[in-house]
């Protein structure tokens, strides 16, 4: 059951940020995550602020001066998956968007909401007073942690649920925000908050700060980029393991690369050791193996999620082999 709250539909962004700065107000974009959380009592609120009535267009997808794209925060996930330009220039992003949830949820859910969604940990969502909800411990540590993180966990061991975020990290995207203090730009790789800094927040957005758009740099356009996701069922399921790959290829040689993982860590996980292992190398069987292993070198699995190490290694190897074959 939903709690009782006031619902407002500002037409100006500055009103959104002003109201958002007060109390425990929540933003409502597509509502697919927010309403579920409120229904299930994960958190509560006394004011919900809709982004649906804004005069400024947060839905737009437009070209930028550097040859990149700017995607409005309210662009629907389905649109990101289907947009011809994105599919052509940033295929990893289109593939990541296409692998989200189900057709209905992709039609309703937005890009900004996808980046700011709450974790799917069953303790966080369920009837458990866990650390992230203000309790004292992470239940996954001694509990059912088959879907939890193998990298970057401290205090809290969620995996970040978004498929889109790792694609944006791999594509070196930038997040543009608005806030009571004015706007700023944040690298996609800095948007999310690791539990080591604050286990109760998922993003570094400040109170009252709203994502306005996401910029994809022109420099990353038309690279070899892919997203692939392994899940326990084929639709309407989060990643057991996801990998966003972005290669700057010169024939078989990798001039530059970015690799980001979903389902691995509490934040979209940039696999820097793997990038180092791959940069400047040719895509041989040995490089591929080294890269896959480097990605997992720091993995510290819990009692039930050791399979993820082999899974990520297998997934990365498969993707690099496919890159080599093209």
């Amino acid at each position: 059951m939903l709690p009782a709250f006031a619902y407002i539909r500002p037409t100006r962004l500055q009103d959104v940020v002003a109201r958002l700065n007060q109390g425990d107000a929540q933003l409502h974009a597509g509502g697919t995550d927010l309403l579920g959380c409120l229904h299930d009592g994960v958190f509560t609120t006394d004011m919900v602020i809709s982004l649906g009535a804004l005069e400024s267009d947060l839905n737009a997808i437009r070209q930028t001066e550097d040859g990149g794209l700017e995607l409005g925060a309210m662009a629907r996930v389905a649109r990101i998956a289907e947009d011809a330009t994105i599919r052509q220039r940033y295929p990893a992003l289109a593939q990541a968007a296409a692998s989200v949830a189900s057709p209905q949820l992709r039609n309703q859910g937005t890009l900004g909401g996808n980046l700011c969604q709450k974790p799917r940990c069953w303790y966080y969502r369920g009837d458990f007073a866990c650390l992230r909800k203000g309790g004292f411990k992470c239940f996954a540590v001694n509990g059912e942690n088959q879907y939890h993180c193998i990298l970057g966990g401290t205090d809290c061991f969620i995996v970040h649920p978004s498929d889109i975020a790792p694609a944006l990290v791999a594509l070196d995207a930038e997040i543009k925000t608005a806030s009571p203090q004015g706007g700023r730009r944040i690298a996609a790789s800095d948007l999310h908050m690791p539990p080591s800094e604050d286990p109760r927040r998922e993003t570094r957005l400040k109170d009252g700060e709203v994502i306005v758009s996401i910029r994809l740099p022109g420099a990353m356009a038309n690279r070899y980029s892919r997203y692939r996701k392994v899940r326990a069922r084929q639709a309407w399921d989060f990643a057991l393991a996801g990998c966003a790959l972005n290669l700057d290829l010169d024939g078989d040689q990798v001039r530059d690369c970015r690799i980001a993982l979903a389902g691995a860590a509490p934040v979209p996980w940039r696999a820097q050791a793997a990038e180092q292992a791959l940069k400047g190398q040719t895509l041989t069987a040995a490089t591929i193996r080294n890269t896959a292993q480097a990605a997992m070198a720091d993995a510290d699995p819990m009692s039930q999620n050791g399979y993820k190490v082999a899974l990520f290694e297998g997934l990365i190897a498969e993707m690099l082999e496919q890159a080599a074959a093209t």
Partner: protein
Amino acid sequence: MPTEETETQNIEGQTPFTQAPDNPAEDKAEPWGEQTRIVGRRHGRIDGFERVSGGAVYPSDVSLPGLLHAAILGCPYPHARIKGVDASAALKLPGVHAVISSADADANPEWHQGGRIFNDTCRYEGEPVAAVAADNPYIAADALKRILVSYEELPYVSDMESALADGAPKVHPDGNTVKTDSYSRGDLKQGLEQAAVQVSGQYRTASEMQTPLERHGCVARWEGDQLTVWESTQGVYAVQSRIAETLGLPLTRVRVIGHYMGGAFGSKLDAGGYSIIASVLAKRTGRPVKLFVSREQTLLTMGNRPPTRMDIRLAARQDGGLTAIEFTGRGASGAYSAGGASLLDWLAKDLYQCDNVATELEDVYINAGPARPFRAPGYVQCAFAVEQAMDALAEKLNMDPVALRLKNIPKGSPAKDNLPYTTDGLRLCIEQGAQHFGWEAARAEAAKRQDGPIKRGVGMAAANWFVGDGGPPCTVIVRLYADGTANLNMGASDIGTGTRTVMAMVVAEELGLELDAISVENADTGTCQYATPSGGSKTVPTEAPTVRRACLAVKDQLLDMAAKQLGAGRDQVVFAGSEIRTADGFESLKIRDLDRLSNQKVVVGLGERRHNPDDVSITPFAAQFCELEVNTRTGEVKLLRMLGANESGRVINRLTWDNQLIGGVTMGIGFALTEGRVLDGPTGKLCNANWHDYKLPTALDIPPELISDPVMLNDDQANIVGAKGLGEPVTIPTAPAIANAIYHATGVRPMATPINPLDLLPRLNQET
């Protein structure tokens, strides 16, 4: 009585009926034969428009003047003693009309599962502690939050192994064993000695949860001493008698209606605690009360396929003939006795010919929601062990898995003293399925595709289902009106399988009418004839022959009328479609032109289900075939195609038949690959209590090619329509067919469900 009778009783929740009218020997109804006019066709649902347009009123749609909304407060712990319930704050909330709990003796009758509706000791998470009735669902939810319960948490057990360990916390004072059971025939030791080859293994299946589309619940209304309950149920009469018994009411005071209902797989065979709670709250408040449990409560409390651990050993001669089968199965009832090991050994002892068999079963209590019969209880789990063991045995014998099974086909039911089967259905399913699937070519082709990390595999499995013969009691009335239309009145529920459509087709066939001339009223104890719940794959074989018999009774009276009107002898007139003719063909009469019918307005035919013949075993059979790919680097399984061959006697409606096959395979895929209850180790609480974390298969988890391949035959020994049960046999072989294909692809045998990357990948990396 042989054990299967008691087991039937167990899973159907009904008493065996030994005094059905008449004897099959006196049954003079001719079989329909090969040429039927309507039966056998593909026919859409007669109520399809109502169902998809929203016109159909399901129990959860029922709205009445003054309706109150109820909600149940569940215990948040797997095991706790209730020290006190303080409802005063809830009662003060405006719009709250009543709160009941164990503190309220008048509102807390004894309940057939053991204990009462509200127990002072809660033995599973979600067990009802209190319930409220309020003006709307929101107030009811708020009220639940204001009920203050003080609990004393008790130690709990949430898996079978810990439940049976020394010093384990006790679910019930007598300990954690519900019961044990054993069976044997021949001499196991000797059988093992005769064998050239043996295989053994331990298989485990996870608990699969019942979560039908329409949630469990009802609307209850009192008018004076008369209680009416609109309930989402598989059997209105079963609900009626349970409510009457629990509340101490005569049957005539309880009317249960379930015209439409949104699906069930065994968990709605009987009334629920909710039926009683709603009735009590309605009495208390003098207002109708609606109570549907939430989805989370459904997953916590509405029943499940019990988790199992099964040890199996098969032994065979070099030619593949089985010499011994040893099976030990353990299953968990949950917190109350609920058939945790019910029917778990049946496929082991009854599917294949084998002289020496020994089985042992153990049913265990754990602090989790009670099990409930779930589509082919026991069989689905057992098939996972038996049919994989057969596959392993075939490999060890260097035999084709199809050939090994064909080598061991029994002529009669091995576990029912070889009582002869009415058909050679098992062989037919396996042979026809293998042929239409292209088994040999597919196996050979897959074996060639073993190079890269993606491996191709092909597997199969077979099954039977020990009921599916149907039987008494069942009464049906068919009324033929003067305008030549007919009404079918039967108690049976249509649980989404198309029962109404199928039975209307039987009426149309027998009375020579078109389908749109038939109306059906069903599932209402106030107006319809007696029926047992729709479950156990027995609805078609129970109801269809009875419906036909009622039609025959109508025709008998029409022939009397025609003979008089035509001045012919009674044996001189015959039915020809919708007309009656004299045997010489000179004179004919349309039904509507029967004078007596126009005066009398209606002819009423009564049908009663007769006994089945007792010298045969009426059994449906199945075989399924599967081709898939396994990505050995990620553990992903991709189903490419499946085929299900079933022998369930006559195909009455090919469309509803195919629906069953597709639904059954889909459910089997969920059981095999995606579904499984996860109980949190340290707290005993359910982790996956929603439709996101509890992973039912989606359209993308179903193979793009899924073929329903019925074995077309009419089983005229079974009953007068020649049809047997289908709804359960369609789901039994799915998981082992998939598992065997995975083994064929990878050489890794799935030993536990759900088979997913979590389990498969480490083993692929280890063993290949």
